């Protein structure tokens, strides 16, 4: 809720804008912006949802528990936590899963990208572009669009239900594979809603590309996984738009988390220059759009987006393109699926360190574990995407506010909230993160 402290007239260059509780983000946080004499003096993205100490909670637990425990960090992207955890443990144990298991994990990730992206595009972000306070107001005028969004989300939920055992916090994922492989018929039954969802996603891309995007173009260092054969989800090297190209094990050598007093969440920076970087759909799209399916690339071209995207407000289109791709990929994976082989491979314990990064809907999610010879976790480190994007969000807000000081208070406040939502921030994940306070006297 915006707290309008001082009415502002055009021309006044000093003011204070405060939003105590940012809405339509997951978790609790706020933003404080202080402008004096036409200069932006202070900008703090405050995260006050209490830290949840998951890393400490994992110490002493069996390595096989890590996927299920870390999945509880987030109700929106539990699959991402499970995937990073199982990959990290399997690397620690020297385990390689079969190709069918790898493909099923990719299918599970498609389900999570669909449900998370659709939730964000329609329920959280679209009301900003269309001038509504929330999706309920938007639904009064755009009811059919909201209904079709719910149907898309449901299709994503169904993938997770069938493959993961239930729609939220799947229970079928284990280190080494799955507890049980799905029957072909159970997956084939998902095809019709997925094909319908892909058609709706196509409409969504064209609709989103017609929205009015506020001006904000910046030169980012995009960071994402990159894989030679596929659009990144579970696997790949960590690359950046400024030439970084490293193995996942090298992540701690190039990235670090620092603590700032105003936030419960750690801020991640590039180690070399302590600089901000950008993870998430725009990063993946910048670095790997050639790996999208032919149909998704053709759609991007039709929408005028088969190009670099450096305006974060256009992230809604990129997210829609990734949604279309996730439907397309899920359909491909299901059509080629055959029940083949064991549901998992043995994963005997040994003393080792394992790291893995996968692409959560919001961006790169890094896990690192040390386990002892009994298979107990002795150390855990989790770097979620929202803490990696925090500095970039603050830099976006700095440029946005500096260029729009003449805007009326309520409009500038709304624009700042919209800019934060460009990143689909998940505060709950980051504290393991938002209120807006812009001061202009």
């Amino acid at each position, binding site marked *: 809720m915006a707290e309008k402290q001082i009415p502002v007239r055009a021309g006044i260059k000093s003011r204070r804008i405060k939003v105590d509780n940012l809405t*339509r*983000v*997951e*978790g609790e946080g706020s933003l404080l912006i202080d402008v004096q004499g036409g200069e932006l003096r202070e900008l703090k993205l405050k995260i006050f949802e209490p830290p*949840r100490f998951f890393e400490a909670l994992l110490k002493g637990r069996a390595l096989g528990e890590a996927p299920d425990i870390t999945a*509880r960090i987030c*109700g*929106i992207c539990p699959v991402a936590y499970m995937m990073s955890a199982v990959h990290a443990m399997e690397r620690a144990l020297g385990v390689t899963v079969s190709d069918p298991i790898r493909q099923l994990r990719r299918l599970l990730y498609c389900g999570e990208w669909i*449900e998370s992206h659709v*939730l964000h595009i329609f*329920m*959280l972000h679209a009301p900003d572009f269309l001038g509504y306070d*929330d*999706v*309920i107001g938007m*639904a*009064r005028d755009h*009811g059919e669009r*909201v*209904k079709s969004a*719910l149907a898309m*989300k*449901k299709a994503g*939920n169904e993938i997770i239900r069938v493959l993961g055992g239930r*729609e*939220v*916090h799947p229970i079928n994922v284990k280190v080494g594979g799955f507890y049980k492989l799905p029957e072909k018929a159970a997956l084939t039954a998902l095809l019709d809603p997925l094909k319908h969802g892909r058609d709706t996603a196509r409409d969504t891309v064209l609709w989103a590309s017609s929205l009015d995007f506020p001006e904000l173009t910046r030169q980012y260092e995009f960071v994402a996984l990159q894989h030679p054969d596929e659009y990144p989800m579970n696997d790949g090297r960590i690359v950046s738009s400024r030439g970084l190209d490293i193995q996942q094990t090298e992540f701690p050598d190039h990235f670090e988390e620092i603590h700032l007093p105003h936030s419960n969440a750690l801020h991640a920076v590039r180690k070399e220059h302590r600089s901000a970087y950008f993870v998430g759909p725009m990063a993946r799209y910048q670095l790997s759009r050639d790996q999208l399916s032919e149909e998704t690339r053709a759609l991007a071209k039709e929408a005028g987006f088969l190009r670099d995207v450096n305006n974060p407000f256009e992230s809604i289109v990129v997210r829609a393109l990734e949604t279309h791709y996730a439907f397309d990929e899920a359909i491909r994976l299901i059509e080629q699926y055959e029940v083949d082989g064991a549901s998992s491979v043995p994963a005997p314990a040994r003393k080792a360190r394992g790291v893995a990064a996968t692409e959560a809907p919001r961006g790169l999610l890094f896990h690192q574990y040390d386990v002892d010879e009994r298979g107990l976790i002795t150390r855990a480190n989790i770097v979620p995407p929202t803490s990696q994007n925090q500095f970039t969000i603050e830099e976006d807000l700095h440029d946005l506010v500096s260029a729009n000081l003449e805007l009326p208070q309520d409009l500038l406040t709304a624009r700042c909230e919209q800019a934060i939502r460009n990143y689909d921030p998940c505060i*709950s994940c980051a504290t393991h993160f938002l209120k807006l306070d812009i001061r202009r006297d």
Partner: protein
Amino acid sequence: MTRLHIIGIGNSFRGDDSVGARVVERLQQRVTGAATPGVRFTQSRGDVAELIQAFEDCQEAVLIDAVYCTDSVKPGAVIKLDLHSNEVPLEHLRASSHCLGVAESVELARVLDCLPATLTLWGIAGENFPLGSELSAPVAVAADAVVEALWGQYFAPDTRANAAAPAY
């Protein structure tokens, strides 16, 4: 179409937030073996798509969820509300461990004309929500009372009259 869908909402790992799921779990155990045609039980995190789909597919829905206390609503208090005729009491339900919660889902369903013919909320005021915690004592007592009331209203052969919310 489901005749009656009883939906317990919450996070099983967050203390009093788990009360909806606990009520559904106990009620299901109690009706085991009894003929309950057209009745469905669900433990839910309160996902908007899942809830609206459930509303569309049933004649009557009962939601059981933890609600926040206010100056006049103390821990363990039970609020029974007809949500088909009344808007969701946002002072109790707006805050959610999810970005779109029960309140938004019900009001969105109302705008989309997806509400079932009957929709009742049994809200149990909670005070203890940390991860890994158990139900607080007053909420545990209230949970038992709500199980009893729902049993009486929907399943007990000779007490089908509308149950009133127990007073606390």
